């Protein structure tokens, strides 16, 4: 079921048949090539750098979603200026390690993640991974709409208006823009994720105390290493850093952008920029909450509105409004990228035209299920009474539960020499990736044990 366009070029004797949506991709490639071969001026190089950023920045800033923002705030409120601040740096490296693999996989094979699993391992295992992705995505989207709902009420805007408006925006840019414009608008929204950094800087952070956390200060854990509250926060923080949708999103996004093996170095820089932004924002929120919300009752399960109220009480209404804006942005950018990841994955699984460059009239199956998933999440949050308190943290941990299976498929594909050629994983990268998978399983297992048997450890 592939729609194709017969493109007749003046200098060609025979017409060239290109897949639907390819023309826009070729135009993007042409623009890149002209920038590459143009004058080596600063303006030209800057324009080339800007043209090459996209998937890496979007995936990592989208990763700091509304649920993630609240998780970081809960972490700071629970443990203050603690080991979670330095912990964000290795978590950033883990995110880079995992996401870099999707860059190579997408650029070398020119195929999305779901497509590779379906074609290489068959429909059964393809459905296996797709169901995990869709379930996790719909749950995660609910946390995004929680953020939008609670934050918009700070501005006296009813969630009955803001949630449908956010949904219309997410769906509108996906349906009516081509890839390049969708990416630029998404990057514009994502840039506002950084609003938490100046907010933290303006809150007079205790730099000495923050510095001491890198030397072991504040690493003592009330309740101990094996307390349920600590383990769930560790799992949730890992879950905000790496999640299954990120694997599917970045690989498919890179393929839709038309990036090739020669673009791998630029894509790595794009990813590193995104990881740096992600770590900075995470540390900023933990510092903000660690300094001003630490000691609040039920800190580890603070809801979005409790976090906002706490910020308002300690730092004033202006700070609360900025935090609320950041929360809306975090929910919005994550909803944009998660919706796109579902669309790409389903389009690849069903082998239909699967590009944001394709008109919705030509590939309803690419767009409709993803929009339906986002609509379900939005509809749930339109209900008057939704138990949102513990949901954020739970969903972050659920993401880590699905992650080992997703990572195993990723590792198998990255070690497939027939697909990857010289770009296969090194042994060190395999060992580190397996280490991450084992760590996820151990953290979740310990959390499970302490949840069911609180006095077991």
């Amino acid at each position, binding site marked *: *079921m*592939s*729609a*194709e*366009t*017969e*493109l*007749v*070029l*003046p*200098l*060609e004797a025979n017409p*060239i*048949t*290109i897949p*639907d949506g*390819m*023309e826009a*991709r*070729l*135009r993007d*490639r*042409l623009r890149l*090539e002209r920038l590459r071969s143009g004058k080596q001026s600063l303006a030209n190089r800057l324009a080339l750098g800007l043209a090459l950023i996209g998937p890496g920045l979007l995936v990592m800033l989208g990763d700091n979603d509304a649920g993630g923002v609240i998780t970081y705030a809960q972490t700071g409120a629970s443990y203050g200026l603690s080991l979670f601040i330095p912990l964000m740096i290795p978590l950033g490296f883990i995110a880079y390690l995992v996401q870099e693999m999707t860059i190579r996989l997408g650029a070398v*094979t*020119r*195929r999305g993640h779901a497509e*590779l699993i379906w*074609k*290489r*391992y*068959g429909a059964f*295992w393809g459905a*296996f991974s797709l169901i*995990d992705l869709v379930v996790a995505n719909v749950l995660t989207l609910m946390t995004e709409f929680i953020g939008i709902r609670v934050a918009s009420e700070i501005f006296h805007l009813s969630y009955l208006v803001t949630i449908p408006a956010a949904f219309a925006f997410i769906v509108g840019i996906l349906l009516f823009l081509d890839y390049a414009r969708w990416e630029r608008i998404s990057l514009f929204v994502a840039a506002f994720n950084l609003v938490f950094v100046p907010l933290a800087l303006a809150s007079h952070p205790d730099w000495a105390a923050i510095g001491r956390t890198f030397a072991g200060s504040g690493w003592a854990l009330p309740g101990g290493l094996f307390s*349920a509250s600590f383990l*769930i926060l560790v799992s949730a923080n890992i879950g905000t850093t790496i999640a299954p949708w990120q694997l599917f999103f970045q690989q498919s996004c890179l393929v839709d952008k038309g990036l*090739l093996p020669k673009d791998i170095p630029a894509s790595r820089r794009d990813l590193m920029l995104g990881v740096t932004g992600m770590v900075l924002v995470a540390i900023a929120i933990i510092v903000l909450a660690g300094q001003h919300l630490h000691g609040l009752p039920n800190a580890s*399960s603070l809801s979005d509105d409790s976090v906002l109220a706490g910020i308002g009480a300690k730092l004033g209404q202006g700070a609360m409004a900025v935090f609320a804006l950041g929360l809306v942005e975090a929910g919005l950018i994550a909803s944009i990228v998660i919706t796109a990841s579902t669309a790409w994955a389903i389009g690849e699984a069903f082998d239909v035209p699967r590009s944001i460059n394709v008109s919705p009239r*030509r590939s309803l199956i690419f767009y409709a299920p993803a929009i339906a998933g986002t609509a379900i999440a939005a509809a749930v949050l339109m209900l008057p009474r939704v*138990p949102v*308190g*513990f*949901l954020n943290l*739970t969903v972050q*941990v*659920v993401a880590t*539960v*699905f992650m*080992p*299976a997703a990572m*195993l498929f990723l590792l*198998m594909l990255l070690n497939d020499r*027939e697909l990857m050629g010289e770009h296969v994983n090194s042994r060190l990268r395999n060992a580190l990736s397996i280490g991450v998978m084992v760590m996820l*399983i151990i953290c*979740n297992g310990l*959390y*499970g044990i302490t*949840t*069911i048997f609180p006095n077991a450890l």
Partner: protein
Amino acid sequence: MPREARSFRYEDRQPASLDLGPAIAAIAHAEGWLQPLPPITRITLRPWQRAVFWGLRVYIAIMLIVMGWGFVHATGG
């Protein structure tokens, strides 16, 4: 040609896009966009791989039950 396909010629377009024809053809040829992607042959998972995936499936099921249990107790449900 599939039913949804449409044909158009560069001479039918707006003048602004006329000069893109040869350039697009050149980049399409140079970067191999007109070549079909190599087919991906299906491989069967080895027994140990199937065992690991089923183990992970059981792990996911157990963890979801535990998360549900934790969620209900934490929210006082």
